Structure formats: structure tokens, C-alpha cells
């Protein structure tokens, strides 16, 4: 009896300590400063501070709550899970009002309305005017946004090819250099994209309407309601308008939004019902319909997940083939080559092993774009293949050196050249030694292939995260995704064991 009581006391203590920490005069607002102006960015005059309209909104809310605002830097794609687990009090980072987000988090009233805008190259302005005109063409957007949902529907309805980015800068630079044919994103980002990339223009048609909201942990509804009151007050007295005017974002859509939000407050649902639409009074014409059960949504996404699994498998197989080829070349060069060649190859291996794969992918895809514009899949295969090639080369080098010298001497006394001895004697014996670590690497590559989503390739993990964002839960999608990875990796391990058996136990120790 005693132990549960002690445990309960400890848990209560921890929980109350956490509550105190959350309420100690500070409003922690989470955002991604990589998003840049006008949302938030490091202050050019003092990079330790952030500036942007979201920072001003946070200051406004903190003042209303009698707290001090404190910025918490979080990657854009992890803002939702981070607020859910209590890393900060409110997420303010151009977060769109999406059904999945509403299902999962406590969401504030919207404080800014935006339109979805199609951006194209000026030379295409006359012919690429709408989603219908983009059949078979690549259209870029940011993952887990309203625009991504619109594009997904356009893929089904008009045969548009969505290209999902992890950031909102590269869609526009890639449009400028011709990697994609259009970008669909909200007007704030589109204006910024066009101003930074000469040669682009925004089409006038409005492809959807969305709203920015603040996000809080689902249990944090009391704070959310206070913040809603503060936002409504700021809508009434012009303080929000002042912020958006300061950042040159004010337009005619905002007064209409505020009127609808304020009207909803005085309506019958102002009592605190959490049903989103009556509360905000919004006409979400472009947003997907109401919340769908997780299982149904998962089943609807299943074909897309399977397609993504095939992409993961193909990508991994081709990358591994490249890794094996470069690994063999490097290992052979290091074992048989002269001192200069061996030193050069050693430096290459250390360079590749000593830097993150993600960085290598970025350099290949974005860094080299002024010299060579690699298609995303090619950059992915090259990045994964070359990176794993460096690791493979070390395995092969070790295996080659582990073949008994007597085997090579025997080959020599029979008149085999070095190349024949490598091909007929040393290589096959080294292969057996290398097989188990090679399989390990293939399984690791299969999983690391998820990194290529950062350069717009939608593979299994990315597709899963899109599904999870859509239904507001990682549970089912995560299980399904894990099952698919296992279904791919387990047969590999089995195949390797069979091959090892087939090559027999007679290889040298």
C-alpha cells in the first residue's frame, strides 16, 4: 500500500513543479526562426533576439497575461508535437488552421487570413494560370499545409505532380531555376518568394483561404481561452492591425475576418463549446472537410503509403548498388594503389564519414544548383550511395586484408595476375566476410533513406508524416510505417543468411 502512495506523491510533486514552472511569469512561445521575415527571424542588429509579426503577437499576448515573452526555437515540422509535450506554452510560427491540428491541439481563434497563391515564372504567366493548366507538371509547396492538401486533391483531379519541401525558401529558388513549374503557398510566403527571386510572379487567382492560429497543448484550454480573449480585444482596439501594418501584411481580408471572429464570440457558442467552426465563425471554403476517423483516413492513405514504400525500396536498392560499386573501387584503390592514391581515397572516406548525410544531401541538391541541377531522386541516390560507399569501402578493405596471405601466394605461384587473384580468389573470399556487415548497412540505408524527404523526395517516412499530420495522430500511421520497414528489412537479413550459408563455411578465418 505504501509504495503506490509514495509514487503518487512523487508524481504529484513533479506535476505541480511543472505547473509552477509553466506559470512563473513567463510566456514561452515556440517558433522556427528559419521561417524568416515577416514571421520571425534573427534581428539583424542583435542576432540573439528574434523579430517578426509572430514575435509582436507573442509580446501582445504576454503583456495581456502579465508575463514576459520568451522565445523557444523549434523546427517547423516538430512544432505541434513539441507544444503537445509541453516544451513551450504556445506555438506562433505561421501555423495554419488545419483539421488535423485542431483535432490534436488546443487552437486559438485565427488572427490572420491569407489566400493561397500560385507563383510561376514570368515566361509562363500566360499559360500556367490555374491548377487545371498544370497537368503533369511539378508544383512545389511546404509539407503539412493547406496548400499541400489542395495540391494533393489537384493530383487526383488534374494530374498535378506535388513536390513537398521542408522549408518555404527553396520552392521559389527551385522555381526560378526550373526544377519545378509552379509553387502554391500562402500569399505572405508568395510575396516574399517573388520579391527575392526576380523572374517570378504571383497569379491573381485565389486558390483557397486559410488562417494563422496559435497552438497550445490540448489540456491547456484555460490559457487558450484567455489568449482568445486577448486576441479578440486586440482585434477590437486595433493593436493587431498595428502589428500587421508594421509588417506590411494588412489588407482588406483582415477586417472581415475580425468581424466574423468577434461575431462568433457573441453568438450562442461563446459559452466555451470546442466545436471549431461556430467558435471562429469561419467560412473554411478551401479547408478539407471535417475530421475523419483515424482508421478510415489511414486506409485512404494506404495506396500512397505503399507507393512510398516502393520508392523507399527502389531508392535503397539503387543507392546500395552505387555504394557497393564505389566501396569496392575505394577499397581496391586503398589496398592495391600507390601511396598518393591511397592517401586521396582515405581523405575522401574521412570527409564523407565525418560529415552528416543530411548536409551532403543539401550540398548535392541545393548547394550545387548553380553548377548542376540534379533532379531530387538523382541527388538522393548520389548522396546515399556515396555516403554509404565510404562505409562499405572500410568493410571491403578489412575483408580483403583478412584473406590469408597464403591464398594470394598460392594464386601467384599458379601465374595469376594481381587482378585475377583479386577477382577469382581474394574477392570471393572477402565477399563472404563482408556479407553480414553489408546487410547491416543495407538495412541502415533503408532507414536513412527517410532523410531524402528533406530534398523533396516523398518516401515512406515522409508519406507517413503527411498522413499523421492529416489525422492528427502518429499511432496508426507509425505502426503501419514500422510494419512496412520491417517487411522490407527482415527478408534482407534472411537473404544474407542464405547467401552466407551458400558460400559455405570454408572461407578463411
Amino acid at each position, binding site marked *: 500500500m505504501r509504495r503506490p502512495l509514495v509514487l503518487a506523491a512523487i508524481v504529484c510533486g513533479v506535476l505541480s513543479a511543472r505547473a509552477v514552472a509553466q506559470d512563473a511569469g513567463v510566456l514561452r512561445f515556440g517558433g522556427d526562426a528559419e521561417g524568416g521575415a515577416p514571421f520571425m527571424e534573427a534581428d539583424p542588429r542583435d542576432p540573439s533576439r528574434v523579430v517578426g509579426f509572430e514575435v509582436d503577437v507573442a509580446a501582445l499576448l504576454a503583456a495581456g497575461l502579465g508575463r514576459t515573452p520568451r522565445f523557444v526555437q523549434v523546427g517547423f515540422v516538430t512544432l505541434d508535437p513539441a507544444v503537445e509535450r509541453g516544451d513551450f506554452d504556445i506555438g506562433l510560427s505561421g501555423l495554419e488552421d488545419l483539421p488535423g491540428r485542431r483535432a490534436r491541439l488546443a487552437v486559438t481563434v485565427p488572427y490572420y487570413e491569407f489566400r493561397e497563391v500560385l507563383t510561376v515564372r514570368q515566361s509562363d504567366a500566360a499559360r500556367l494560370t490555374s491548377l487545371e493548366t498544370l497537368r503533369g507538371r511539378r508544383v512545389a509547396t511546404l509539407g503539412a499545409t493547406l496548400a499541400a492538401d489542395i495540391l494533393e486533391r489537384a493530383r487526383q483531379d488534374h494530374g498535378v505532380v506535388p513536390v513537398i519541401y521542408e522549408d518555404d525558401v527553396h520552392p521559389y529558388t527551385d522555381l526560378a531555376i526550373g526544377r519545378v513549374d509552379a509553387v502554391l503557398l500562402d500569399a505572405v510566403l508568395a510575396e516574399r518568394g517573388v520579391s527575392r527571386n526576380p523572374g517570378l510572379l504571383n497569379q491573381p487567382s485565389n486558390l483557397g483561404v486559410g488562417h494563422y492560429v496559435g497552438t497550445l497543448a490540448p489540456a491547456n484550454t484555460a490559457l487558450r481561452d484567455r489568449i482568445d480573449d486577448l486576441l479578440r480585444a486586440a482585434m477590437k482596439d486595433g493593436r493587431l492591425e498595428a502589428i500587421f501594418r508594421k509588417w506590411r501584411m494588412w489588407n482588406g481580408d483582415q477586417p472581415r475576418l475580425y468581424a466574423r471572429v468577434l461575431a462568433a464570440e457573441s453568438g450562442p457558442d461563446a459559452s466555451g463549446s470546442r466545436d471549431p467552426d461556430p467558435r471562429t465563425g469561419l467560412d473554411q471554403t478551401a479547408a478539407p472537410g471535417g475530421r475523419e476517423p483515424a482508421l478510415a483516413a489511414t486506409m485512404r492513405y494506404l495506396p500512397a503509403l505503399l507507393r512510398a514504400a516502393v520508392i523507399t525500396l527502389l531508392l535503397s536498392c539503387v543507392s546500395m548498388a552505387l555504394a557497393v560499386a564505389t566501396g569496392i573501387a575505394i577499397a581496391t584503390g586503398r589496398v592495391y594503389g600507390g601511396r598518393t592514391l591511397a592517401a586521396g581515397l582515405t581523405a575522401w572516406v574521412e570527409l564523407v564519414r565525418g560529415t552528416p548525410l543530411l548536409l551532403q544531401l543539401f550540398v548535392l541538391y541545393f548547394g550545387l544548383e548553380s553548377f548542376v541541377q540534379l533532379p531530387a531522386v538523382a541527388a538522393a541516390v548520389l548522396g546515399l550511395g556515396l555516403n554509404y560507399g565510404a562505409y562499405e569501402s572500410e568493410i571491403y578493405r578489412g575483408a580483403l586484408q583478412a584473406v590469408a596471405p597464403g*591464398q594470394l601466394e598460392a594464386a*601467384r*605461384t*599458379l601465374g595469376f595476375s594481381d587482378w585475377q587473384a583479386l577477382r*577469382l580468389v581474394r574477392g570471393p*573470399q572477402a565477399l563472404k566476410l563482408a556479407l553480414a556487415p553489408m546487410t547491416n548497412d543495407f538495412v541502415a540505408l533503408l532507414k536513412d533513406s527517410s532523410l531524402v524527404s528533406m530534398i523533396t523526395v516523398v518516401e515512406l517516412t515522409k508519406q507517413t508524416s503527411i498522413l499523421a499530420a492529416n489525422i492528427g495522430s502518429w499511432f496508426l500511421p507509425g505502426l503501419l510505417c514500422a510494419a512496412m520497414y520491417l517487411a522490407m528489412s527482415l527478408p534482407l537479413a534472411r537473404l544474407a543468411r542464405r547467401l552466407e550459408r551458400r558460400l559455405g563455411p*570454408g572461407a578463411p578465418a
Partner: protein
Amino acid sequence: MSALTVRDLHVERGGRAVVRGLSFAARPGELLALMGASGSGKTSVLRAVAGLERFTAGAIEMSGFSRGPGALPRGAALRELHARVGMVFQFHNLFAHLSAAHNVWLAPVHVRGTGREEAERSARRLLHELGVGARADARPHELSGGEAQRVAIARALAMEPPLLLLDEPTASLDRERRAELARTVRGLVSGGRTIVAATHDGDFVRACADRVLLLEEGRIVREGPAGTLAEAGGQGSE
């Protein structure tokens, strides 16, 4: 004319002289035994002749092919050398990933360009002649010491070298197998092949050697017919 002539051979290993000015000749169809205690330099002589070891001075000649000090032979020179000499190692060094027959036909196919079927037929015949025909499909790790030794001899013979080097051919064999091997080797010699064997084994030398060179610290200290020197060379080894 000699099948093998070695003149004033010097071999160093790790800065230490292991063969010091050694000269000898082997006649065609002769089995010449190099005897001596461990470290006397007999294996180093064989390795130098087989092109596995560099030598610092001297010359090695065999049927129109001669080598001086310097780098190990490569390319065409290596093929020239091994058209004339084959070697059987003390621990056989059979290719671990291949069957016995495959070990035997690999070099004829890839070095001499013999057709695969013909080479395989010859390999099986050779294995049969050496008494291990039934083990043609076994992997090296499945063979006994005696069987592995015979497969290794077959592998060297498949390249039809006029000179065969045997390094401690009986080291891994029991008494009965040693006698069998001695008969096999004698048969090869009577067929006209020249054999140079480094060995401790007095019985083997008595059974099949023609002449013995007794080595000590890298020099020949005695030379004579097998009957008189087998005991001296075998001393302390068995």
C-alpha cells in the same frame, strides 16, 4: 643441362641474412632434397625460386628463364616463371571457397586459356591419378591433411611445370600417408619431372630423393646421395 640452377643466392628478411651465398643445380628428372633444421633457410630458397621472395644477390635460372635480384616478377615475367615452376605449400593453401576439382582447373582456364570442360576433365583425371578422385567435389575444409596435400600437388601439376617445389610435403601426414606420398612423388620423378623438396623427413628422403643438400644458417654444409645424408638432415626433426 640443369632444370634449375641457383648461383650465389642471398636472401634477407627484416635486415637479417637468411640465405648466404647458396649455389646448387638440380638435374632434369631428379628429386633434390633440401634438409636442415628450422631456420636453416630451406623454405626461403624455395620461395625465392618460386618468385615469392625477393633476393639481394645471386641468380636463379630454369630452362631458359633467369632472374636476378630486385622486384618480384609481374605480368608476363610471372607467367613465364610459372610455366616452368610450380609450388606446393606446407599448409597446402588450397583456395578455401572452391571445391578440390575447382582448385585444380582454375589456373589452366584463367592463366593458360584451356577450355573449361577440358580443364575440368583433366583436373578430375589428375585427382584420380593421385588417389583423391572421390574427393573432387569436397571443399578444402572437408579434406584430411593427406587429401589436401594431394589436391595441392594436383593443382600445381595441372599447370604442367617441369620443376615442382614441395615445402615440407609430409609435415601434416601420418606414417602410412607419408609412405603413400613418397610413392606418388617417386612416380612423378620417374615421369621426368624435377622436384626440389624442403623437408625434415629422413624416411621420405630415403624413400624417394636422389640427392640431399644439408643447410645450416643459410649455407650448404654438406651435399651427397640421399642414402648417406638422410639421417643427418632428419636429425632432431622427428
